[in-house]
Each structure stands twice: as structure tokens, then as C-alpha cells.
């Protein structure tokens, strides 16, 4: 196998930065490889990918040393446009990298830019659309596509010139679990059936680990681990627990060897050892009968009664939602994209007006919407919120730093402190608060949310992250088609499903209602003790 991408002694420092983002990097990606790039936020993953496609330093500025060679193009002599002939790149947010109006025009753009003849363009568009399942979307406007569809279009535009290498920067971070799984399968198929080498960075490693044949871990711009998926999980168990997958953590905590990269592998290993616990997952309780015409004094921090949001020309976004949240209670709102989670939160915060129904709140409602940058409006962090408030919350950020220069985790935590600042909120609503965060940052935010709930605020978290819901929530509410499909304890909702289930629950098939690796490990330890006896 010849090398498609080669970093040799490569270092890179962003313009104006004090420390290099990449340090003396040596890395080779061979033809047909599938390499997963892991590491905490700020470790240099995105910079590595931008250097690989020629954007850094050609487009981004900054200073570089060493060489990057992609398909024979040396990045100091060839710009991103030339490198794109051999290497397709998909950046993090698909919405920010599509240019044209329709899918067809977007797929054709890279070929038109290179002066391909019309028949060649038409053929490439046709083939790319078939390969990526976009044939039915070709004449759709990009503004009408879902996040997953948009991501596939961005991949299609990157693949249209038939490059041998595909670079992707956290491609699933903006997607719901269904779309993220679809994308993982698509990448696997491109790699296995078309032989396209893939270098992909990801926070939720369990999504892509089964497809990878190699994992490279970056830490502070250096390669900390370069190994097979199993080798990486063994390394992570000892050296970087925050990078462990839930399955890996389950095995490590239970003291089992050979951490699994897939649910199937985990179940086979447990079955062979006779440790696969038996037992049904807890059942979802039937909903309590609705009491009509009875007025009760409610103690709820938020009480939603028969809430409807109907829009002309579309189905109802919310169709009679009933929900109440008590002070100090944490509720996780789950459901696929378009289920009505964000709409419900906006209604509770008073940003939207319901068609019918009623919302009673016991006091101020704080809402943290999906994009924290929408809150960070100012030139310095100190302009946003008093620094003492941040210090009290355990956030150490220079007062003069521009909000744009903050990391994703810092942005999310500062935005959170901004929405809860001032008069204590009766309810705190969070919309996808851990999207794009690494596990360490996610855990920090979860800890802060717990402390807010412990002070008496009702917390509602809309999330796709089943692990977060299992860790934080007292109750899980599953929304679909604008109504409550099911609600109950995290054990009853998250232990018996495929998508709305934690990885631990899927490995143990919901046995004992174990949702988190620590709970599963306890169960496995019990099974071992029984087997030993």
C-alpha cells in the first residue's frame, strides 16, 4: 500500500497563537485505510485535517514547518484547490460549506470549477448521487434538507472529483443518532466497497470505531497513541479514561480483558464467559389517566397543558403536549430531529405563541439554545458576564479574550452561566447542551447542571445523548410527531431500545436496567460471582 497522506516533522502555529497547535507530527495514511482521529477538544484534530487538505497554512495563515504530502501534492507548493483533486474534505458544519441552491448544482460545482465538459459533469453527478443515496434529492433546494442529508451532500461534493482520500471533521456532531448511524454506515461502505481512504475525527468514538482499522489519538498537538481499535481501547483504559467508549469502560470497570469495539463483539465475549446477564429490561409504565375538569393546586415549576403548535401548510409541530416538571427535578427530552423538542422548549421560554393550550411557570425561565455563540455577543468575555460569576462557577477564562477565540466547551459553559445569571430561574431549559463537546467538557457541564437542579430549579434537557440522559435525568420523556410517546424513569425508557438506549443497555440487552458502564460493571461483577460460585 502506498501512502496517500504523509506528515513529516510537521508543526503548525495559528496566527497570533502562543503555542503550536501541531508539534513535530509524523503520520502516514495508506491507500484504503480507515483512520479514526481522537483526542480532547483543542488537541489539534481539526488543525491536522485543515493541514491535510492544504487550508492550513495556505488559507488560514499561521506558520508551519515540516512537510505535508497528499497524493503527490506537497502543500507548500500546491493550494487546497489542487489538493482537492486527490483529497475530498468535509468540515464540521455542513450548512456552512454548501454554496449553491440545489443538490445537483452543489455536486456539479467542483467539476465545473475545474472546467470538466458537461457530459462528464452530468455523469459524475449521477454516479455520486447514486453512491450516496441522493438521487431522489437532486433537484431539492439545499435549504429544505435535514442535517443528515446536508452532510451527505457535502460528502458528495467532496467525492465528485473521485478523490482517493476523504477527510471529515466531526461529521456526526450536528446529527441525531439515526442520521449519525446512517453516516457511519455510509463511510464504511465508501471505504470497503470503493476503496476510499478515510481520515475522520470524532468525539463519539463508538460510532465509528467498528469501521476503523486504526485510531490515532492527538494530545496537545502530538500523537499520543497510534494503534488498532482494540489497542486504543486498552491504552485509553489506563491513560485516557475520558476517551473510552461506554463498552470499553464497561469492560475495564468489570475487569474484563480485550475491550470490545462493537456491541456484537461485547455480547459474544460476555456470552463466551457466561456473563451475559439474563432478564427483561424494565417495562415502560402506561401513562396515568388524564384527569379532566379537576383543578388542583400545582407545585410544578413548569406545567404544560394540552399544548398545540399548528402552522399553516405543515403538520402540527406540537400536538397536545402535557408535561409538568417539579422544582429540583431533571427531565430529559428525547426524540428524533423534528420531534418537537426545541419547539417545546421555546414555548416554555415564551419565545413562541401556542395555537392552543397553556403553560404555567413558577418564575423566570432560563433557556440555553443549541448554538452558544448566539449568546456571546461582545468583544471580550468580561463584556458578556462579570468575571467573578465565571470564577464562582469554576470557569477560568481571561477577561480580555474574544468570545470567538473560546473553545466549544468554554462557549457552552459561559453561555450557560449567562442564561442562569441574575434572578434565580424556576426552570432551566437546555437544548442539546453537549453537542460537539468532548467527554471531559460534557462531564463538567453535567456537573454544573446537577448543581443548578440541587438548588431547586426544574431542569429540562433536550438531548440525543442517551448517556447524558441516563446520568442526569430523573425522568425521560420521549417525543415524536409533536406529542409525548412515552415517559418514565431513565431505566424504563433507555434500557429497552435501539436508538434511545445507552451502549451499556444495548450490550446487556437492558438486563437489570443498567444504563451506565458503572451500573453494568456492577451487574457483571455479580454475574461473575454467581458463575464462580
Amino acid at each position, binding site marked *: 500500500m502506498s501512502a496517500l497522506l504523509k506528515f513529516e516533522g510537521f508543526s503548525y502555529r495559528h496566527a497570533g497563537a502562543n503555542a503550536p497547535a501541531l508539534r513535530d507530527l509524523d503520520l502516514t495514511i495508506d491507500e484504503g485505510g480507515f483512520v479514526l482521529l481522537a483526542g480532547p477538544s483543542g488537541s489539534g484534530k481539526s488543525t491536522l485535517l485543515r493541514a491535510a487538505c492544504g487550508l492550513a497554512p495556505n488559507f488560514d495563515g499561521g506558520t508551519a514547518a515540516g512537510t505535508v504530502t497528499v497524493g503527490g501534492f506537497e502543500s507548500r507548493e500546491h493550494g487546497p*484547490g489542487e489538493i482537492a483533486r486527490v483529497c475530498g474534505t468535509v468540515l464540521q458544519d455542513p450548512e*456552512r460549506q*454548501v454554496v449553491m441552491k440545489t443538490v445537483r448544482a452543489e455536486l456539479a460545482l467542483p467539476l465545473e470549477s475545474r472546467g470538466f465538459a458537461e457530459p462528464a459533469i452530468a455523469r459524475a453527478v449521477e454516479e455520486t448521487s447514486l453512491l450516496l443515496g441522493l438521487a431522489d434529492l437532486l433537484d431539492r433546494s439545499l435549504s429544505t434538507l435535514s442535517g443528515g442529508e446536508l452532510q451527505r451532500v457535502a460528502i458528495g461534493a467532496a467525492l465528485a472529483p473521485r478523490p482517493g482520500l476523504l477527510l471529515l471533521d466531526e461529521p456526526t456532531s450536528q446529527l441525531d443518532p439515526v442520521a449519525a448511524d446512517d453516516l457511519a454506515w455510509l463511510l464504511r461502505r465508501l471505504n470497503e466497497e470503493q476503496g476510499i481512504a478515510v481520515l475522520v475525527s470524532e468525539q463519539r468514538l463508538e460510532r465509528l470505531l467498528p469501521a476503523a482499522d486504526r485510531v490515532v489519538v492527538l494530545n496537545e498537538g502530538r500523537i499520543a497513541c497510534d494503534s488498532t481499535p482494540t489497542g486504543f481501547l486498552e491504552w485509553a483504559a489506563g491513560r485516557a479514561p475520558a476517551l473510552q467508549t461506554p463498552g470499553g469502560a464497561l469492560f475495564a470497570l468489570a475487569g474484563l480483558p480485550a475491550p470490545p469495539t462493537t456491541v456484537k463483539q461485547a455480547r459474544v465475549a460476555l456470552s463466551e464467559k457466561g456473563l451475559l446477564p439474563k432478564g427483561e429490561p424494565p417495562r415502560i409504565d402506561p401513562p396515568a389517566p388524564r384527569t379532566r375538569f379537576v383543578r388542583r393546586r400545582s407545585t410544578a415549576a413548569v406545567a404544560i397543558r394540552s399544548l398545540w403548535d399548528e402552522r399553516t401548510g405543515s403538520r402540527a409541530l406540537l400536538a397536545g403536549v402535557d408535561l409538568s416538571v417539579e422544582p429540583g427535578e431533571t427531565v430529559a427530552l428525547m426524540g428524533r430531529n423534528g420531534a418537537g423538542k426545541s419547539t417545546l422548549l421555546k414555548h416554555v421560554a*415564551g419565545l413562541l405563541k401556542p395555537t392552543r393550550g397553556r403553560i404555567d411557570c413558577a418564575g423566570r425561565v432560563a433557556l440555553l439554545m443549541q448554538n452558544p455563540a448566539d449568546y456571546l455577543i461582545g468583544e471580550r468575555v468580561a463584556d458578556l458576564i462579570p468575571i467573578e460569576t465565571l470564577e464562582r462557577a469554576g470557569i477560568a477564562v481571561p477577561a480580555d479574550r474574544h468570545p470567538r477565540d473560546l473553545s466549544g466547551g468554554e462557549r457552552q459553559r459561559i453561555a450557560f452561566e449567562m442564561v442562569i445569571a441574575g434572578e434565580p430561574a424556576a426552570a432551566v431549559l437546555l437544548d442539546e447542551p453537549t453537542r460537539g463537546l468532548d467527554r471531559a467538557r460534557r462531564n463538567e457541564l453535567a456537573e454544573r447542571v446537577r448543581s443548578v437542579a440541587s438548588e431547586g430549579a426544574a431542569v429540562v434537557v433536550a438531548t440525543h445523548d442517551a448517556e447524558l440522559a441516563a446520568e442526569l435525568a430523573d425522568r425521560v420523556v420521549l417525543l415524536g410527531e409533536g406529542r409525548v410517546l412515552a415517559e418514565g424513569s431513565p431505566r424504563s425508557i433507555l434500557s429497552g431500545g435501539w436508538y434511545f438506549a445507552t451502549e451499556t443497555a444495548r450490550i446487556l440487552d437492558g438486563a437489570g436496567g443498567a444504563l451506565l458502564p458503572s451500573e453494568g460493571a456492577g451487574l457483571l461483577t455479580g454475574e461473575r460471582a454467581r458463575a464462580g460460585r
Partner: protein
Amino acid sequence: MAGAWFAVVMAVALALDHPLALVSLLVGLVSVALLTGSGRPLGRAAVWTVPMAVTVALLNALLSRDGLTVVARLGELPVLGRLDVTLEGLAYGGVLALRVTLVAAAVAVFAACVDQDSVVGLLRRRSGRFGIAIALAGRMAPLLAADAKRMSQARRTLGSEVAPSRAALLSALVGGALDRSVDAASALELRGLGDGPCLVPPSRRPWSRHDFSLSISAAALAALVILGSALGWLDASWRPQLAVTWGIGAFVVAALLPLVAAMPLLDRRGVVR
């Protein structure tokens, strides 16, 4: 071809002076909007177009000094001097308002029912980078509107202690536009812009029956207006006194304009009902 058709409609709207012809062209354009299913975007455009047109009409009535038929004397104003509202000023203000409405309506219907990518493709055959710039500008507008809406909602959810001012919001929006532009520029680099001739090769797509009917309609619209003007049927002058021809010819042109405009859409073959 649809792009060229709209260009002709706008040119005709700007060339016409006769109020009856302008009204009938507006009727034709509204019919086209309804037949193409663009009634809703046209309605949305009307929300800001109609007040703007009324403002134009009022300003012209107040500031025009060329009419002879005074209908109201508003007295002396410090900067503007004597303010007389004339019938000619009012009438010409109405014509200007009609023109503004027509051009805005044409743009709204064009944006709603014409594939802008094909128009950009056409521009890129002449000037590659210009075409791309147009495409980006077209995409930026709704994205920035969405950014503004989100930021404004975020501001509403913050307590007064930390809520940013409107000026800060505007500044952030401008900064966001720059960020989005940089992202788009990097995406274009990655799509190979600059790695080739940039000019798109000419298309050999055959004309469809719609292309033919649109071109016939555009040519007929232009011919009607030229003929009507040449024969004096559409004569209208506004200064110093109103002189508008109301002969049979003006009514014939007014009757034909909406029909000719809507002609390409009268063939409903292939339209899903």
C-alpha cells in the same frame, strides 16, 4: 429562459408610463404568481413592497414642483419651502408606486419559481467568479436572517444584567457574516475554485417547450409595448398637466398584456393537479 422573461417584464415595467398598462401588467404578474404557486412569496413581498410604494407615491406628491393643478396647499416649511400638492404629482407618484410594486413583485416571483442555480450557471459562463459571488450572496441572505432571528431570541432569554444592546447584536451579526463568508471561501477552495479555468463550459441543453413559450411571451410583451408606444396608444405625460391617452388602443394593450404574460403557463400538460 425564465430569467430572461423576468428581465423583459421588469424592463417593460420601467419603460411603461401608462397607468392602465402598468395595472394590467401587474394583473398579469399576479396571475403568473398564482399559476406557478408563488402566491405566498408574493404575499410576503407585498408586506414590505406596498408600504414602500405608498411612501414613494406620497414623497413624490409632496416634493414634485412641476404640476399645475393644485389640489392642496400645505403652507410653508422651513427647508422645503412652499408645499403644494398637485394632481400631476399625485398621479405620477401613483405611477412610480406601480413601477416599484411591479419590479419587487417580479423579483419575488422570480426568486420563488426560477432555478437560481441555472441563472448563476448562465452568469458563470460569462464570468465565473462573478457567478459564484452572486450564488453566495443569494445563499447568505436567508442564513443571515436566520442568524439574526436566533440571536434576537437568545437575547430575549437573557436577564437584563447580561442582555447585550441592539448595537452589540448588530455588530455580532456583521461579525457572523464575515465568519460565514470565510467559511464559504474555504469551502470554495476545497471545491477546486481557482484550480481550473473558472468559466463554466457552455451548456448544450436543448430548449424545452417551456423555453419556447417563455421566449415567445417575452418577445410578444416587448412587441406590444413598442407597438403601443409607436402608435401613440400608450402616451402619457405628467408635466405640467396630465395628458393620458385613453383610446381603444390603450384598452387593447391592457387586455392583451396579462394574457401574453400568462400565456406560457396556460399549457398545463405535465402539471400535477
